[in-house]
């Protein structure tokens, strides 16, 4: 069987998240390079997953797309986490493994004893597993860290490895839940943290000593689709660690299509909109400004290039490179992004801005915001009315939206070109609202 890829699901969910009901099925299909039939099938599968994880919310397909909309006060867990529960598993396998885990939750067993338990507990119509299957399951469960081999002579006994929760008091469990929740929401990477949070929450809700457990935390303004980017994160981190190249089909975010089905029959192969890329991953950058990840890679043909994680599909590891090459390119990159507001590796420019302090009694939130968000920039010449902010960045393109967000609380002094651009943009924006003036 071909390796299961979730690119289709990821692209579909991202499109849903970002466009909140803007497209009908045909429009979605066009943008994803899929048939309407395939869209329906994928949606049905995703809906089933959500329905199984949250049986309390039995939902229709329409409600499913509704679920994906961002609702701040209702959202306590990331809506898209269910994607990571999508790996397919045969019915018989899921029955068997759950029986094994439940048994080892009680006490330690040998593989032969587990085989017997399966014989006694699995439904009579289910095909009974053989010893080899059980040994393979036990090996798998040990490998993913769910169970652990007890010390002692052969035959080995295995039991569930969940001391982490069993040995904590109920008060400690609350602290643990809070820590996991807070770190998953405020730090990266976060998917494993969200998975752990979900498990802990259900465990605590069953816990007698903690009645009426509530989730007290809210996180404001989160970028909900960022966890989709983490789907490729670990493959890329591994490739960086192993100094290996990767290959993928890349859809530039500027292209109207974001995915395309892999056609196995060459006769029907359409022109792919995506481009085949091969690159040596050097670093991954998380951009807090938009909640997106970038892959920075090197290839001898194109040099150092940036890819948006959302455009990467059909990612696979490729051949390794010499350590020396990786190190050389990595230090070249470090030098180049030293002054990147985000990922721009263009020429450094020195920018000087005067920020204006709000008039009392309004607190000086401008100064506070500049210190908080101004990265490595320096503040000087502070008076009661204003202060100067100076920063060297690669190009002005990436910092410009941030400067503009301050509106009339700042004035670009240098470089002249940026100053002129700002003036031109404000003129244009004023023209957008010229009708407002007539109303005053």
């Amino acid at each position, binding site marked *: 069987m071909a390796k299961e890829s979730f690119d289709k699901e990821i692209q579909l969910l991202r499109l849903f998240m970002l466009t909140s009901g803007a497209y009908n099925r045909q429009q979605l299909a066009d943008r994803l390079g899929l048939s309407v039939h395939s869209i329906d099938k994928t949606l049905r599968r995703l809906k089933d997953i959500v329905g199984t994880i949250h049986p309390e919310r039995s939902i229709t397909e329409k409600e499913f797309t509704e679920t994906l*909309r*961002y609702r701040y006060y209702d959202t306590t867990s990331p809506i898209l986490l269910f994607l990571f529960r999508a790996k397919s598993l045969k019915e018989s396998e899921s029955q068997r493994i759950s029986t094994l885990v439940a048994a080892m939750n009680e006490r330690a067993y040998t593989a032969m004893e587990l085989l017997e338990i399966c014989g006694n507990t699995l439904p009579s119509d289910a095909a009974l597993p053989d010893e080899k299957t059980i040994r393979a399951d036990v090996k798998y469960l040990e490998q993913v860290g769910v169970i652990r081999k007890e010390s002692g002579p052969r035959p080995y006994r295995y039991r569930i490895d969940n001391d982490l929760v069993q040995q904590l008091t109920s008060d400690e469990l609350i602290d643990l839940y*809070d820590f996991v929740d807070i770190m998953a929401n405020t730090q990266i*990477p976060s998917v494993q*943290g969200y998975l752990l949070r979900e498990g802990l929450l259900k465990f605590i809700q069953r816990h007698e000593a903690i009645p009426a457990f509530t989730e007290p935390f809210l996180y404001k*303004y989160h970028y909900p689709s960022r966890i989709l980017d983490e789907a490729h994160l670990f493959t890329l981190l591994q490739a960086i660690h192993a100094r290996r190249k990767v290959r993928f089909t890349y859809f530039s975010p500027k292209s109207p299509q974001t995915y395309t089905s892999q056609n196995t029959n060459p006769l029907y192969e359409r022109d792919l909109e995506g481009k085949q890329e091969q690159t040596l991953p050097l670093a991954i950058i998380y951009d807090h400004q938009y909640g997106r990840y970038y892959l920075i890679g090197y290839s001898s043909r194109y040099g150092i290039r940036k890819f948006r994680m959302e455009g990467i599909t059909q990612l696979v590891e490729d051949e390794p490179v010499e350590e020396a090459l990786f190190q050389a390119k990595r230090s070249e990159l470090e030098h180049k992004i030293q002054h990147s507001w985000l990922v721009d590796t263009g020429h450094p420019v020195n920018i000087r801005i005067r920020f204006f302090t709000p008039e009392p009694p309004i607190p000086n939130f401008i100064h506070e915001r500049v210190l908080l968000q101004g990265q490595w920039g320096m503040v000087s010449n502070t008076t009661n009315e204003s202060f100067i902010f100076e920063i060297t960045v690669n190009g002005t393109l990436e910092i410009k939206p941030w400067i503009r967000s301050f509106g009339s609380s700042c004035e670009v002094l240098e470089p002249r070109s940026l100053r002129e651009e700002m003036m031109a943009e*404000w003129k244009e924006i004023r023209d957008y609202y010229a009708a407002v003036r007539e109303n005053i």
Partner: protein
Amino acid sequence: MQLFEKIFNYQLLSRIEEQGAFMITSQERTWLKTMLQHPSAHEAFSPVTLDKLQTLLRQDATFDVSTALLEKAGSKDKHVYHPHLRTLRRLILRQTGVQLTYKIKDGRIYHEEAGYAYKLEYSMVKREWYLLWYNLRRRTLMHTRLQQIVDVAESSITPTQIEHIQSEIESRHAANQRQATILVLRRYNRELSRILYAFSCFEKDINYDEAQDSYTIQLTFLQDESEYILSKLRFLGMRVKVIESEHFKQRMYESATRALARYDETTTSEANPTS
């Protein structure tokens, strides 16, 4: 390591839960162990608990992402944890009243104000914690920085009072709800992805007019979020235009006019730095 593991499969998970078992994978333990290296772990746990967790995780690995994974354009972390967090969290869990002594912006201190705390909110933008609570004496919904809280104590409150406060919170949220409609200028459709990312942290409905190939974004928000949304609109600049919300249109017009006035006034003085 693979995030799409069959052990995370949804049917398997729900079966295991039905049987009352709790499982945790080494990926989750590795994540936890990595996060415990963060300085905030010392504020999140008592030394005894932290030590216990570290012992329980001694066999596990940590992610080494510090060199490969970089972060850009983030706000400086003021704090991830705050010393009041654990106390307040427990008061919320116990559904009791609170008595707060806190500073306000001009430096004055309010002493032992009685209220009911219902949520703790972390601002990803300001990187600090806020307490959402209802002030019983003033009958107002409060949004107080944990940094400004001097002292917290428990106080009593009746279930009837809580019920009343909760319906009060709901009706005030409903009353404070606002809407605005934003048009993405068609010549910027190529930047649609970036524009939608910028709005992805808000509640919204998006309309696509196929004939015109144009997108409109209808935002739903609470009144006190207006300033943040305006800063996003200025952030996106010429790419977007407010088409519904007189207040926003007015404010955008004022911003543009005042910003231009800054440049007009100072062009001469900048050209001659000695003046």
